[in-house]
């Protein structure tokens, strides 16, 4: 199930995974651009405004009714970062026309709606509708401010921000309240044109239709677009940290959230990244990892404690939620377990468990169109094209020594703690 790749125009590719495995299909149109302070908010806002109305279907109600009649086809926005690349755009999910009860062309209808959104949006006096743009600006600001609602993910994001405060990776894909406020319906419309001209566009389809049929439809969608020069994409990697910073913040939380950020010294584009994957599994992912087995099971210091790596940027954050008075014990144990891996103290169970578990994770990707797409986008940004199956094969060649070597490359960078307010008093 490797994707078949077509070039539609300069900087526009189509990837098709044609499979009868699913009753639903999905098609995503992803814009890939450098993550920048000046454009992050505009990119986030753009998809939201495109979803508000098209020339033919000017309101959300119109679009929604149309999609409902296409058997609950959905079109939503995508927005995430991979390293210092912002990936945003539109994503659709719809059932195979075979299951339509009235012969409706679900694929054609859904792709038609996506094309309307992208190329025939709702325009007033040569720009986006001001009311829509202002409304979505205020929603985006709510989203930015709402990051604090989820304390666990907030503590992770804050650690990323502090670690990479002078690097593009530290930017929030949503932008900041200030950058959102500066956007007008006119500037956003200009930005839309620029994106169509300059962004790298990866279209991804997973479903039952043949590659030829999809190719025709996608070519139609992008017809007339040519001579594009997409911006190059890259991620600046700092292989090791120079010093350790500690950041403490307070909020009305019951539980202290601890995030320990490392530079990993290894990134996805390295030929030996697969060794790092096994290291990260042994140390901190899943239920047989050292962090789970020791910090949680043995010492019962927490409910969750895991390592979250960012493959493109070469960083990893260990996140946990702990009792305030057990803060030192937890922090010590998390670092101690890393030393254990560095010193080669890895049991056969831990080692075999990690390999088996990773293999399972890789193979499960084949059951999820979303995960397949995310996998190949990540790989292509790192200049690779190995499949999950290839990765599963590679990790079987990793040794315990390799894992220790990977661990030794880690350097501690930033320790971020979100503490309960009471302590402050």
């Amino acid at each position: 199930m490797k994707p078949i790749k077509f070039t539609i125009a300069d900087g526009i590719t189509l990837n098709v995974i044609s499979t009868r495995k699913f009753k639903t299909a999905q098609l995503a149109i992803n814009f890939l651009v450098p993550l920048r302070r000046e454009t992050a908010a505009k990119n986030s806002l753009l998809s939201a405004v495109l979803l508000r109305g098209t020339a033919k279907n000017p309101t959300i109600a119109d679009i929604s009714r149309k999609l409902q009649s296409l058997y609950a086809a959905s079109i939503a926005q995508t927005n995430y970062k991979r390293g210092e690349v912002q990936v945003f755009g539109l994503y659709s999910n719809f059932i195979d026309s075979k299951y339509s009860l009235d012969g409706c062309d679900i694929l054609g209808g859904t792709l038609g709606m996506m094309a309307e959104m992208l190329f025939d949006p709702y325009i007033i006096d040569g720009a986006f509708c001001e009311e829509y743009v202002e409304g979505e600006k205020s929603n985006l600001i709510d989203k930015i401010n709402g990051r604090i609602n989820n304390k666990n993910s907030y503590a992770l994001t804050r650690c990323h921000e502090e670690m990479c405060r002078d690097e593009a990776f530290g930017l929030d894909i949503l932008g900041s309240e200030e950058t959102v406020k500066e956007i007008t319906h006119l500037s956003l419309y200009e930005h839309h044109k620029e994106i169509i001209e300059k962004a790298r566009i990866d279209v991804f389809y997973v479903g039952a239709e043949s590659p030829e049929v999809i190719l025709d439809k996608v070519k139609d969608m992008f017809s007339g677009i040519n001579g594009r020069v997409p911006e190059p994409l890259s991620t600046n990697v700092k292989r090791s940290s120079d010093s350790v910073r500690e950041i403490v913040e307070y909020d009305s939380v019951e539980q202290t959230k601890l995030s320990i950020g490392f530079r990993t010294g290894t990134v996805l584009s390295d030929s030996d990244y697969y060794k790092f994957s096994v290291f990260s599994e042994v140390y901190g992912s899943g239920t047989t990892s050292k962090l789970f087995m020791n910090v949680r099971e043995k010492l019962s210091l927490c409910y969750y404690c895991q390592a979250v790596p960012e493959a493109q940027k070469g960083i990893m954050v260990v996140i946990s939620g702990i009792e305030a008075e057990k803060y030192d014990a937890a922090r010590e144990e998390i670092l101690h377990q890393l030393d254990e891996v560095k010193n080669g103290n890895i049991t056969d169970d831990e080692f075999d468990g990690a390999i088996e578990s990773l293999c399972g994770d890789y193979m499960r990707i084949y059951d999820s169109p979303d995960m397949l797409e995310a996998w190949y986008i990540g790989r292509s940004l790192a200049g690779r094209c190995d499949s999950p199956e290839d990765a599963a094969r590679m990790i079987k060649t990793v040794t315990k020594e390799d894992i220790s070597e990977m661990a030794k490359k880690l350097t501690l960078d930033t320790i971020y703690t979100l503490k309960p307010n009471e302590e402050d008093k």
Partner: protein
Amino acid sequence: MTETRKIESALLDESYYVCTHKSGLEVYVYPKEMTSSYAIFATKYGSVDNRFKLEGDSDFTEVPDGIAHFLEHKLFETEEGEDTFQRYARTGASANAYTSFNQTAYLFSCTDNFYASLEILLDFVTKPYFTDENVKKEQGIIAQEIKMYDDNPGTNLFYGLMGALYEKNKIRTNIAGTVESISHITPEILYKCYNTFYSPSNMILSVCGNVDVERTMELVDKYIKTSEIKKIIRDYPTESPSVFCPRFEKTFSVAKPLFEIGIKDTEISLDPRERAKKNLAVDILNDMLFGKSGKLFNDLYGEGLISRGLGASFEHNLSFSFNAISSESSDPEAVFGRFCDHCEEVKKNGFSKEDFERIKKVIYADIVKSFDSTEEIATNIVWQRFNDCGIFDSVDIIPTIDYDYTKDVFDKLFVPSSYALSIIRNPEE
């Protein structure tokens, strides 16, 4: 001794087998061509089942809040001392468990060695091992789990709403209990709950993926012992149709107030097919009245009163039933007012027949979509079975739902005395 039936749906182009084991355990075997296979072993026992007795017992037993969830954590412990996750690690399965208001489930997903993993699942769930020491250890871990949820505004919003809707029903209480309630848990109480609810006739095994009946049943024969089938009598408190308290408010560090509107429903039919039909009718209503094609959402969104969609979901089973509509707003009270007005208008004038027919298609398509994952299929089988339904029933029921039936369900459900509003807002506001 095992009886096997094949169940098919021509419309969905899907089929599975139901086997009734001599122990009373129902086993669902659903062959499906996917890379991963999934197994779930579940008991009809959740956080609301905390007053119960077995047929023939004179008195009801009342147990501390959070015990079903605590028991779920503790079953992973084995007498041999080997951690269950460690055993699964050798087969490469990814294992987990969860406890809801009315079920506890143990599950795994794997891409290889399915039967070896199934053996682990059947083995550890049927071999409880509780000691003072291992109970004490778990109290620390679960206390942190409870505190993690305490820090989640969504959890606070939801339980606030349940506390407003219900006076006595255990759904008011966090599934995990409180740090205080779990401190009263002992190995003896755990064994009592285990022996009551983990009997084969109160459980279901559901497997989906690269699986077959014969090999699955061989393992069931090996691990599931036959014992006397005793009826479990659960004592659920009776609730008045009106809400316990119409408002809940709590301060929390959130950017914008979060709100959830609840509608308490005490009209719960004993006929499972009628419950399933009503459930689907309310799904249609929720999508039609609060979804993105509806007037209420578009008015509120256009005016900036809400900044994202209105999430609506209906929970309908024998132990509780409520409809909930949530979002965030700078003025939840105003949204609530508009919600009430909108419902009154629908009561008076009805809804569009065209909208109704279109949304029926949506509900049908959502069901079709749920057959693309071994996890979703195996999980839905359990959920449906605990509600005395089959996984293909919904697609057959949808065509029987007409406008008049749905309007009648609406009129009975949307009664202002059964509305409650839960709000989480920032202390600075």
